[in-house]
């Protein structure tokens, strides 16, 4: 059934899509090796360089003034030219030598189909944010059905969308029309946004909707040259004379369209990768690419209203080895700096057996963690930073030597387990122990200090050890403790609390015939 006059479509059109894709790849590589020559805008590795600045350099208007062409997969013929190359007299299909003879300044790019596919995925993901009804109409062309979009002015959101595509490094144009074909025509001639209303539509040439020479010849012989002139003819007469093809053209010329969009859903994978032309032996180029990838992935994941919960880094080495690492993000986020810091912390300690030739970064989307602290509970200011610090502390003192102390259910003295805090650390309510504490605290010597003990009538009277020596003024004990008598880990000790003549209070333990000072009361 033909759609009503109220149907509205938008088309996002990326001109010279293959050329732009190849150019992005080339710029990424050049930036890795600090090549700031020719038309490539200057890059630096400083973190202060903003996302906006970097992306502007990718889709820089000035650099489009340089003649550029895309080579076919054999690298012999030109398959895409920019305006500057056309103005310079370069023609499609010519060989590289002919083209360079015509225009010595011509910049040639090798086609990268994987890069085009990745950018296509990114484009769909970004566009999907603005309409759930999207069609991948061709390389660099995306059609949006705007049904249900209750906005009167389309300019603001289209500007926002184009800015996001710009952040991916692509320069795009947008057109709006009553059917996809007219919207595409609008997008192709837009600078950068054009909405074709019914008045403007009537002045469009017939060629904007059909390329059929048969139809065009007949219509032109009738003196019909514009869509407006065609729309004034009666529909039934067109159907009788020109058949279904003519009827379809009339419908589209009048703003109706029987063409249904082939709706697609953007892929839910978020990854970026690069193969380096030269082998990398230092970290800086990888960090540069890492930051750029994070910016792109963050933008793509933002379009599906999710956060990044996991980063998967894969480094390909020259000797064929692959180093893969999954980095969990404790508090999922899209913040570039936080994600960069987490990945950087891993990369800075990484040692590879061979130079790096490829790098892939995959972001796994996640929903935000829900946390509701009570009124008087203090949460962590920056959980991601805290967990990074924990990792550093674990590296410094050992994995089992940092954490929250937890008592183990045993009577054996000095049995404590450390548990790493989790993200919801502190959500546990403070439980106040009901049993009152007795006596001073104990400082433990770990391990216990082996001592020679003088006995009199079975009781210690003096202690000799490397740390404390003296006569025992007073003592309490023995306190007999034992456990695990049912298995091999059986233990049995006698504890004495002693006060030495140096004023110190200690806990002395006898196990078999061995005496140890295990702690000091303090």
């Amino acid at each position: 059934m033909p759609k009503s006059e109220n149907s509205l479509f938008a088309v996002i059109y990326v001109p010279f899509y293959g050329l732009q894709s190849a150019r992005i790849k080339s710029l990424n590589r050049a930036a890795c090796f600090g090549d700031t020559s020719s038309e490539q805008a200057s890059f630096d590795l400083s973190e202060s360089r903003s996302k906006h600045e970097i992306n502007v350099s990718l889709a820089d208007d000035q650099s489009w003034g340089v003649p550029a062409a895309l080579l076919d997969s054999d690298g012999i013929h030109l398959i895409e030219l920019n305006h500057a190359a056309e103005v310079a007299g370069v023609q499609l299909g010519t060989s590289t030598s002919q083209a360079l003879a015509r225009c010595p300044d011509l910049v040639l790019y090798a086609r990268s189909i994987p890069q085009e596919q990745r950018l296509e995925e990114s484009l769909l993901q970004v566009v999907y944010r603005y309409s759930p009804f999207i069609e991948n109409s061709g390389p660099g062309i995306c059609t949006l059905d705007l049904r249900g979009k209750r906005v009167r002015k389309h300019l603001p959101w289209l500007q926002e969308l184009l800015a996001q595509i710009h952040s991916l490094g692509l320069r795009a144009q947008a057109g709006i029309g009553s059917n996809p074909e007219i919207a595409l025509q609008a997008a192709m001639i837009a600078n950068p946004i054009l909405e074709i209303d019914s008045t403007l539509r009537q002045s469009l040439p017939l060629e904007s909707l059909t390329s059929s020479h048969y139809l065009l010849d007949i219509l032109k012989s009738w003196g019909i040259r514009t869509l407006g002139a065609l729309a004034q003819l009666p529909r039934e007469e067109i159907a009788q004379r020109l058949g279904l093809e003519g009827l379809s053209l009339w419908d589209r010329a009048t703003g109706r369209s029987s063409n249904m969009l082939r709706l697609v859903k953007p892929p839910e994978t978020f990854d970026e990768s690069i193969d380096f032309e030269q082998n990398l032996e230092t970290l800086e180029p990888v960090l540069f690419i890492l930051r750029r990838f994070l910016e792109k992935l963050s933008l793509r994941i933002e379009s599906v209203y999710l956060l990044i919960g996991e980063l998967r880094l894969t480094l390909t080495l020259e000797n064929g080895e692959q180093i893969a690492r999954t980095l969990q993000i404790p508090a999922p986020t899209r913040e570039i700096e936080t994600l960069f810091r987490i990945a950087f912390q891993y990369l800075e300690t990484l040692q590879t057996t061979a130079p790096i030739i490829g790098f892939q970064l995959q972001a796994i989307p996640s929903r935000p963690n829900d946390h509701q602290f009570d009124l008087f509970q203090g949460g962590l200011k920056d959980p991601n930073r805290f967990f990074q610090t924990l990792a550093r502390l674990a590296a410094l003192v050992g994995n089992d030597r940092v954490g929250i102390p937890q008592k183990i259910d045993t009577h054996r003295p000095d049995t404590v387990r450390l548990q790493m805090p989790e993200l919801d650390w502190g959500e546990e309510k403070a439980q106040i122990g009901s049993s009152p504490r007795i006596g001073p605290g104990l400082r433990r010597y770990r391990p216990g200090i082996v001592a020679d003990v003088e006995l009199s009538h079975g009781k210690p009277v003096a202690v000799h050890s490397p740390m404390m020596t003296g006569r025992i003024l007073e003592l309490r004990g023995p306190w007999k403790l034992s456990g695990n008598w049912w298995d091999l880990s059986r233990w049995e000790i006698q504890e004495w609390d002693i006060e030495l003549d140096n004023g110190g209070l200690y806990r002395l333990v006898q196990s078999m015939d061995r005496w140890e000072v295990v702690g000091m009361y303090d």
Partner: protein
Amino acid sequence: MPASPKIIELRKVLAERFPYEPSLPSLSFPTGWALFDSLLDGGFPRGGITQLITPNISSGGTLVLHEIIQSLHKASRHAVLVDGKDCFDPPTHQPFLLWIRCTNALQALKATDLILRDGNLPVAILDLKLNPEIELRKIPGTTWYRFQRILEENKNSLFIMTRHPIAHNSTYNMIMTNQIKIDDLSSLSLHLIQLFAFKISRRRAQQDYRYA
């Protein structure tokens, strides 16, 4: 632009119903232990170092440490204990305490540096009481000034326990000269701690805490 009459009227009503002075931003982290908080003018100073010096062997310093941890726990406040000689014996389950078990003073200082720079935990406790003199003498004086700068930046607090003063830039120096006897082993900790005498040997004026 002058405030609207409704706002002025609302302010008057609030002033009548709640006749309190507006509270100033706190300069300290209350521990929740009244005795300690009163000695320290409200709690651990934000952006400052507090030193507890316990020259005697069994002077009750660990009991003070347990009391502070317990009070912070009751107030659901996170704290970190950097244990310079791995000697802490947790009396109960401490879900709000991060315990870092170091083997020497150098390692403890590195851990403290990481924790202070992190800035997530408001109170850090550095226990160096059992660390030998030879280790403590090797700590450069600049370390404490560096910690001070980090504390000022992050507005958190560092509490150090030692036998002799080591941080010369501390905001408070407290000295405990008690001596626990063997009979005290059977006393309630609560009663025992009330007998402790603290002497403040240094009290530096705190600078106004500037909120961003």
